[in-house]
């Protein structure tokens, strides 16, 4: 059997498309068999809702009178510094940005109550945000100071642009040392006191299209409660890692760079987040529809938590020092049971990403497609695949000669 995206879109327009979430399709494939299920199912929807640090947004604030050149000056949104290396009225706010006077980790672990991710959430929620800017002044942009409230509805553009989201698999973090550590994977108690993981597993977008057969540049997606697009492969995209027989990467692999109009997104799906002892970030909701173009695609989307393995890594030593040591490989089914075995010890697990919210994203996207509100796109260019030879490199530090 073979199906095209154009054919699927015709069925969506006619209100006849058969759509399941990546969780529901597991039972469909089990009951009917892959062959029959592939004939019946048109689209499978995925979802993930977790802290995604390499997220941010850019804004065009409109020109003041007299004009002020933000580029090369300084700008703050609610006291959080924004990037001003662009043109006169453009700003970029990254999710991890912190106010200059945040105490950070001076009293460890720092709380990181407010940062760039929170500014993005407040803008999306329609709240007024304080902009304070200084500039050096030019003949054409003479103004040197600006303080004003801004609101997303008045901005010319407000665009979410996340350079690395939706990681295909992730580490399970543990702590082998004898003191509590505060990491981006959460609070880790000493002597394997707990294990934290962060993936929606069987619902996560790139686990359902492990070789990026349909997800590519230009793929239309659910992003932050609205509609977005895959802009590029995400940073650190690393497709060449070891995979299972079914093609599932056994460690962090592919990533997505995504983009979308912030004005149509919602604070329910873009939440400013505080990671104790680590920093501020943004929790992002991403959902990708997978067109069932072949039996192979149906088979990929029927992946279950028991088929997906994640590496257990010590965040007290192996992670900070870039050591390759993997303590164990465990499945998401084991992780979700609440306990895993590491070095003979029974370790309680907890998730960093929300499975119920991932279900809600996949279900929302399913309804959008079923009711004809969301059509699928052909990707313009595939993401680099396992065969591309693309690998991520560590930083090669070289001494500077003076």
């Amino acid at each position: 059997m073979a199906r095209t995206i154009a054919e699927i879109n015709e069925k969506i327009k006619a209100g006849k498309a058969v759509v399941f979430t990546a969780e529901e399709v597991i039972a469909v494939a089990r009951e009917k068999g892959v062959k029959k299920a592939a004939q019946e199912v048109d689209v499978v929807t995925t979802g993930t809702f977790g802290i995604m640090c390499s997220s941010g947004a850019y804004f065009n604030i409109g020109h003041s009178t007299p004009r002020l050149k933000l580029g090369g000056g300084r700008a703050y949104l609610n006291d959080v510094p924004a990037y001003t290396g662009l043109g006169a009225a453009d700003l970029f706010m990254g999710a991890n940005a912190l106010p200059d006077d945040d105490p950070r980790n001076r009293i460890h672990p720092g709380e990181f109550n407010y940062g760039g991710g929170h500014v993005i959430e407040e803008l999306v929620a329609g709240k007024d945000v304080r902009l304070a800017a200084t500039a050096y002044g030019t003949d054409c942009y003479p103004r040197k100071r600006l303080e004003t409230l801004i609101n997303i509805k008045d901005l010319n553009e407000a665009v979410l642009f996340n350079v690395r989201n939706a990681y295909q698999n992730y580490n399970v973090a543990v702590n082998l040392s004898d003191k509590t550590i505060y990491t981006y994977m959460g609070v880790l108690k000493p002597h394997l006191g707990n294990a934290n993981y962060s993936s929606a597993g069987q619902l996560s977008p790139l686990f359902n299209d492990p070789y990026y057969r349909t997800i590519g540049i230009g793929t239309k997606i659910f992003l932050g409660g609205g509609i977005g697009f895959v802009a590029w492969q995400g940073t650190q995209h690393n497709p060449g890692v070891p995979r299972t027989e079914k093609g599932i990467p056994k460690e962090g692999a592919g990533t997505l760079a995504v983009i979308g109009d912030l004005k149509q997104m919602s604070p329910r799906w873009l939440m400013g987040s505080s990671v104790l002892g680590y920093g501020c970030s943004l929790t992002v909701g991403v959902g990708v529809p997978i067109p069932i173009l072949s039996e192979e695609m149906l088979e990929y989307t029927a992946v279950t938590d028991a088929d997906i393995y994640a590496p257990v890594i010590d965040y007290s030593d192996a992670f900070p020092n870039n050591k390759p040591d993997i303590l164990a490989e465990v499945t998401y089914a084991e992780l979700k049971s609440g306990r895993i075995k590491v070095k003979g010890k029974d370790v309680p697990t907890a998730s960093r990403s929300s499975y119920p919210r991932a279900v809600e994203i996949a279900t929302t996207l399913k309804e959008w497609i079923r009711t004809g509100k969301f059509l699928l796109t052909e990707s313009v260019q595939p993401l680099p695949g396992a065969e591309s030879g693309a690998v991520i490199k560590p930083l090669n530090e070289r001494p500077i000669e003076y």
Partner: protein
Amino acid sequence: MTVSKRIVLRFPRRLVERPIVYRLVKDYDLEFNILKASITPEEEGLLVLELKGDQKEYDKGIKFLIKAGVKIQSLSQDVTRNEERCTSCGACITVCPTGAFSLDPKTREVLFDNEKCIACGLCIPACPPRAMEVHF
């Protein structure tokens, strides 16, 4: 019948120096476990207790406290979860020392049992969207 309850006591300034808890033990035969105690700059005393004993004696003890001028509230009213902000990620589950958070095995939503909460506050900064609140 034996009861065991977690309560928050607020002492006005004039009672801070009186041995109130001693009377609960001596006169009403109640067992207590101090979960938290502090005195604010205004010299108002705050005491979070687990109080255990015979139901009748417990009720009498509570009456005594009210009569003495102590304000009493159930602990569960003081530790709350902002449902708008909770995403059910699960970051709180292994942080909580008393197991007050658990997962609904079916929906995987994080459940909060405030009867198990001892108001230690460890979950508050460990929650990324800051959904947990203590109102002392």
